[in-house]
Structures are given as C-alpha cells and as structure tokens.
C-alpha cells in the first residue's frame, strides 16, 4: 500500500494560486483514474482536477472556499503498490482517519491532528446543498438528534405550540422534536426559530420574518466582488450620460436584418456600437487604454478588444471580442453571439475572458434610463447602453416620435478628463445618430 499525493496543478497564465470551489470526493471514497476529484477556480476559469490513479481518498487538503497555492498538496490517495509520498514532502501525514471523518483543514506542522480538535474556528455554515455527488461532512449547527416525523403523519405538539408555529409561519413537520414520543415542545420550536428557520407554509396575512441565510462568497462571486472592490476603490469614476437619437440607426438595422443572408447573424445594436467605438477610439486613443497605477504607466492599445459584460448563471462575466477594429459588422455580430453563448454555458476559454481594452455593458433590455457603470479595471472607460424609448422630440415646428437611447459611460478620471470624456461620447452620439458615418472611410 502506498500513498499518492495530488498537488494543486499549475493552471497556467502564471497563476500562483487557485480557489477550491468544489470537492467531488471525501475521505474514504474510492476513486478511479480520471474521475474528477475537485474543481478549482482561477481568475479566469474553473478547472477540474482528475485523479491520475485508482485508490481511496485519505485526506483532503483544503476546504471549499480556501485559496490553495500551486504545488501545495491538495489530497492524498491510498493506492496499491508503492506510492510516491515521502516524509520530505511539504505535507505531514494527517490524523489516522479511519473512514468517514470530517474534512481537515490544511495541516501546518503538527504531526497528528487529534480528532478532539475537530471543532474549528467559527466559520459561517455554507449553504446546504443536497447534491448527491458531494455530501458535506461538516455540519457545525447540527440539529439535536431527534426523531423526525414520518411523512403524512401530523406533527405531535400541544395546541399552544401549534398556534405559535402558525403565527410564525413554521411547518412543524420541519421541527426536530425532543419531547416524549416525538412531541415538539416549546423549546424545540424556540430552537428552530433561533436557527433562522424559513417559514415553510404560505399563510395569508402579513408576517414578521426573522430568518437570515449566510452564503459564503466563493468562486465566481468572490472574483466579481474583488474585481468590483478594486475598481470602485481605486478608480475615481466620472459618469457621463447623453441621449442618442437612434431612429435612423434602428431603421438601418431593420433594413439590414430584413435583407440579411440566411447564414448571417441577426444584428442587435451592439455591433453598430462596436463599429462606432472603433472609429471614435481611433481619434481618441487615450480612451482605449489600460492604466497600471502601481507602475504609473498608461498603455494605449492600437487593437480594440471589446469586453461585453454578460450575465451568466454564475454571475457577471466579460467575454472579449478581440480585434474589433478588424471585424466587419456581420463578423462582430457573429463573434458576439458565439462568445455570449460560450460565456453562458461556461465553455469560454480563458483567453476569451480576458484582455479587453474597453468594455460595453448593456442592461437595455431591462429598461432603466441611466446606469453608473463600474470600469473593468485596468481599463479606463466603459460604455453603458440603456433602453431605447420612443419619445416626442421637438423638431422646431412639431413634436415627432423619435427612438431615443441613453448612453451612460464611465471614465477613469485620473487619466481621462471630463472634457475628453464628453468629446468621446458626443462623437459616439454623432456617429450613431447618422449611422452612415460609421461606415464611411476616412
């Protein structure tokens, strides 16, 4: 019998550490070669770690949410034959875990972790997930061992307890009972309420709710949170909002969509905006830039890599349409569609999720007249698209219905002056209002 240690792999792009987002195994589980053991997440992507061997999991080296350095031991597997684990590895043998034991935090130096030490420093309980694949072993606030009620059986409780439960909107079938014969006592109900139980039954009337739920910020959400904190704390934003008459643009778009070839994608407003951006940024290279504020260096980019803020089931992500300057309007549209799809179903490659030089964010479909977009650090500008509304516009003699869209754009005020920001937006407006200008060379 030997031991095989799996270390955090180098997931590329010079990443030095990765966050463990999911365990697929627990100590005691048999594993087969190529079976997925865990998922780790870098800034860019989630990577699954397969098992290189057959064996039995002995030890897990991190908890979900922990950040693990590349090359640090991640888990140990007992294998047939000789293992490769030797005494000089960074990892010391953990406690003699028989079979089911709680996940153990990374070992510092102690040779043996006595099981009595099991209660770890207080951490908020992760939200319970009833995933068949990876049942959680640690349950810090386990309910007192007590008889649960069989389905279909009325919960056993005095009328006073039942009344209180009704008032609190609690389904007594959810409340663990400690009383004789499985009777739910007032204390049981108190404890259940104290644990922040969610009211289970919909009852008419207004009710106070006291429940809270703690959700550990991990994975994608943690990346988003860090990115937003960075951008919001370091970049003094200036946000400039202008309304754009897109009546002509919409007419053009409708005409182009009506006449498009069957293999061509349907055009939204975004590819037009991208083309207009390319044109405007050619005139104002200071806005198609990244700002390394530690080094104090602004890098102006000749390429226009447009990040497109995209909502995915896991949260906000920004796939990048690379070299928008070299793409036709149809090509831009096709690439947009492909990337959005890839981002949503999680198949976007790391390169496709990084390297943008400017970002477009659009909540237009949801309505909203103004947004205050947060810049995608280290870029210096972001353009927000608001909803197109038909509004009455005075043309000098009468009100006429025009399609009006607001652009809400933010700039890094350290390196983009308000004047330049306004010039940029006004130029964009001019192009979008007279869309022929977008396509005229020179």
């Amino acid at each position, binding site marked *: 019998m030997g031991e095989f240690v799996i270390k955090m792999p180098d997931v590329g792009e010079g990443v030095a550490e990765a966050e463990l987002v999911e365990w697929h195994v627990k100590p005691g589980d048999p594993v087969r070669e190529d079976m997925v053991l865990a998922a780790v997440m870098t800034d860019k992507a989630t990577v699954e770690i397969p098992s290189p061997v057959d064996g039995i999991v002995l030890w897990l080296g991190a908890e979900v949410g922990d950040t693990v350095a590349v090359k640090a031991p991640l888990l140990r597997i007992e294998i047939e034959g000789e293992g490769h684990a030797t005494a000089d590895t960074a990892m010391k043998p953990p406690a003699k875990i028989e079979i089911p034991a709680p996940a153990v935090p990374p070992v510092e130096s102690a040779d043996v972790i006595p099981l009595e030490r099991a209660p770890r420093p207080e951490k908020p309980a992760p939200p319970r997930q009833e995933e068949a694949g990876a049942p959680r072993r640690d349950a810090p606030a386990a309910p007192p061992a007590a008889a649960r009620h069989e389905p279909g059986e009325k919960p056993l409780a005095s009328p006073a307890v039942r009344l209180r439960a009704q008032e609190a909107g609690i389904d007594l079938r959810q409340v663990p009972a400690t009383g004789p*014969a499985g009777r739910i006592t007032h204390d049981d109900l108190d404890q259940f309420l104290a644990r922040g139980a969610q009211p289970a039954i919909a009852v008419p009337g207004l009710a106070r709710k006291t429940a809270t739920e703690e959700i550990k910020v991990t994975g994608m959400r943690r990346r988003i949170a860090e990115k937003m904190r960075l951008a919001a704390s370091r970049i003094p934003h200036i946000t400039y909002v202008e309304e754009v008459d897109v009546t002509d643009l919409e007419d053009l778009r409708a005409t182009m969509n009506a006449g498009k070839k069957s293999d061509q994608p349907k055009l939204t407003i975004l590819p037009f905006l991208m083309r207009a951006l390319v044109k405007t940024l050619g005139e104002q290279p200071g806005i198609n830039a990244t700002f390394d504020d530690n080094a104090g260096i602004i890098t102006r980019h000749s390429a226009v890599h447009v990040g497109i803020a995209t909502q995915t089931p896991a949260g906000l992500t920004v796939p990048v349409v690379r070299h928008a300057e070299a793409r036709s309007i149809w090509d831009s549209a096709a690439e947009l569609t492909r990337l959005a799809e890839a981002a949503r179903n999680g198949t976007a490659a790391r390169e496709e999720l990084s390297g943008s030089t400017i970002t477009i964010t659009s909540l237009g479909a949801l309505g909203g007249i103004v947004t205050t977009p947060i810049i995608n650090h280290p870029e210096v500008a972001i353009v927000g698209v608001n909803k197109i509304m038909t509004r009455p516009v005075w043309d000098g003699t009468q009100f006429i219905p025009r399609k009006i869209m607001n652009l809400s754009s933010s700039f890094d005020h350290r390196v983009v002056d308000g004047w330049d920001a306004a010039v940029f937006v006004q130029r964009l407006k001019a192009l979008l209002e007279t869309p022929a200008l977008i396509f005229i060379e020179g």
Partner: protein
Amino acid sequence: MKEIVCKLLVIGAGPGGYVCAIRAGQLGVDTVIVESTKAGGTCLNIGCIPSKALIHAADEFEKVRHMAGASNGIGITVEAPKLDLSQTVRWKDGIVGRLNAGVLGLLRKAKVKIVHGPARFRDGKTVEVETETGTQVIRAETVVIATGSEPVELPALPFGGAVISSTEALSLTTVPKTLVVVGGGYIGLELGTAFAKMGSEVTVVEATPQILPQYDAELVKPVARRLGELGVHVLTGARAKGLSKEALVVETASGEEKRFAADRILVTVGRKPRIQGWGLEELDLDQSGGFVRIDERCRTSMRGVYAIGDVTGEPMLAHRAMAQGEMVAEIVAGRKRVWDKRSIPAVCFTDPEIVTAGLSPDEARAHGYEVRIGQFPFSANGRAMTTEAEEGFVRVVARADTNLVLGLQAVGAGVSELSSAFSLALEMGARLEDIAGTIHAHPTRSEGLQEAALKALGHAIHI
C-alpha cells in the same frame, strides 16, 4: 332600504355562525349576521339542547317510576309518578328561550349587527335578506356560509301526519302510545330511549346490521342491553318500505314483511347540508359529496367566501362548527390560522352514554399502527357502584412503540363529561404514562381513565 356595507357577513346564526360573528366582533371586525329563524340554529332550538332537556326529563321520570315499581335496594318508596309532557315541553322551551336571548345578547355585546330573515346570494359579495320590513341588501368583503343542515326525508315516508322528524318529536305534547323510530343512529336512539322511558312502546328499525353503526360493537353492547331492559324492540338489517293505512311496512332481515301500527313514526336517517334556497347556484361553489367543499382554512372555491359547520360535511357536530367559526373569524381579522385539530370528540346521549375521541382500535390498526389497548370496566369503580351505574367501561388506544395515545372511548353513565379529558390528552399529545401519572380524584368515574391507561401499561391497580 339602505344597503348595509360590512367587512364580514355571516349567514346563519347557529353554533358555527354565532361563534364566528362574536369572535369577529371581539377582534374589531365590522360584522353582520343573518338568521332566518331563531338564533342558535339546530343545536339550540331543535337539536342538542332541547333533546337533552327531553332526555333529562325522561330519565328523571323513569328513575322515579323504577322506584315506584318493585322494591329497590336503596330503600326509597314513592307513588307512581305522572308525566305532563306539555309541561315538560314548556320547561324545555323556557331553556331554549333563555339560550336564544343569551346568544342575541352575546352578539350585541360583540357589536354584531343582527338581521332577521331568509338570505339569498345575489353574488359572492352581496346578499339580499327578506326582512319583515322589506328587502335588505348587504354587501360584505367576506362572507361566511353557516346555513347548517336539515333532516333527511325518506321518499317512502315523507314528513307529515304521523311521520315526524326530530324537530316535531321534541315538541310533542303527549307521549305517543306506540312509536316507531326509523334509523338507529344516535338521534333516533336518544329520542327513542327518551320516549321509551316516558312510556311509549318503541320499535327501532335500522337498515344496517347494528344500531349506532359508527361505533364498534363493544361500545354499543351496553346500549343495546339497556334498550332491551326498557322494552325497546330493535330490528336491525330491516328497511322501512312505507305506510299502509296506519301501519308502517318493514322488510326484515330475513325478507319478511312486517307491519307496525304506530301513533308516530320518527324518521332519523341522517341529516343533509342546507345548500338550497339561498342562491348557491348563483355562486357556483365547488361541492364535495353534496357538501360545500372547503380547504383547511374553511375557504370555498370562491375568493372571500368561507363555509363552516354542517354545510361543509361530517362530522356534523356543533363543537366542530364552533371551532371552525372561531378560526374563520381570526383569519378574517388577519391572523394566521389553519385547521389543525387533532380531536373532534363525539358524544351519544343514549343510556348509557357513549363518548369517543381520536381513533378506535380498528381505526388505529387500519392506519398501520401497532396498538396497545387498555380497558377498565366501571363495575370495578367505586363511584359507579354507589350510583347504581356500573355498566360500561373506559378504553384507551395507544401506539405500541411510543405509548402515544391515539384514541379514547367510554360507554357508561355520565361519560360525556370525560370528553374534555379525552380531547385534552389527544391535543396535548399525551402518552399512556402522562395519563397514568396524573392523579384522578377519588371517588369519581374519571378514575376509570387513569386505570385504563395503567392497564394498557400492564399495571392496573384496581383490576
């Protein structure tokens, strides 16, 4: 007439309706109640209360008559008693009148507006009442239907003439010489027993093989024996076919046709919900087996329309209707309530009385429980002996694994008063040990309950 607009309109001032209205009034809900006859409903006017008065009078009369007969052990001698039934009925009417006035007083105290007259739905929120002074339109945010039930008529024996329902039976001013009771349920037997005690020659015709078919044979046995003592002739498995001249034609269990000459024929074959005559068809409420269908909050299929009491189905008991009424009033007042009662006790005021709460042994087994049963006979109870009422027993049914009490039954003199202990035990989720560990006063019949629990635990003291 000026329209009345209110938050809550209750139709029917029976036990369900008046409790609902009083509770709603207490909670500050602007409430109107409509009643076509007298406040108190079937229960107070032509049901529970008057029948209990008559039964009491019959008991007293029979007791004295018994003493006047052959020498009794106690040593009391009396002259043969006489019964003036018309006076008995006046006395009964006095009690009913007091209670009528009491209900009206309670409604007024709760600031409930009372409208007299038959109500008819115009739509789900509007009701027209034909009052003595004209049509009164009432509009309400919420309506509670509490129209109750009425006796079922047999097609072969329409009410009228000698054929009477329980209502008429409670107002007879002379004791019929011969009385045939069609239907051996609790209403028929309570009244049949009372008339037998007052001197009628009573025959009970029951279609099923057992009188009081909803109870198990053990509970019914003491009642059947007592009926025999009182000279009541019981025909089970027999069907009333109709009237032929002054005689009732009955097809017996063996298929023979028999004729029973009867001064009165009391038909007590059940009660049906009163769902006609008040515009149910306008509302198109969902029904379930002829009753208005309700959910666990007594809501009907129409928003803002509730139904409570007999009109909503079995068990058709006043205390169920009262509990429903209270619950609905609280829901209307914005409180969160749902029907979660564990026990609706039922009492049968036969001689001796029967009381049941929760599951019978057979019902418990049918639910899949392994059960433990303890039964204690009153013949071993001192109080029962000293009141010359040793008939009957207390029985407890519990889960064999946890000793949780699932049901309680008793038959015997005065056991109706055990219903509160029975229901409390069930609602509180008592185990056998809880009842066995509770001191029951000596000497009372209630000791039988404690002993039954002890017996189920295997260590009864007094048997």
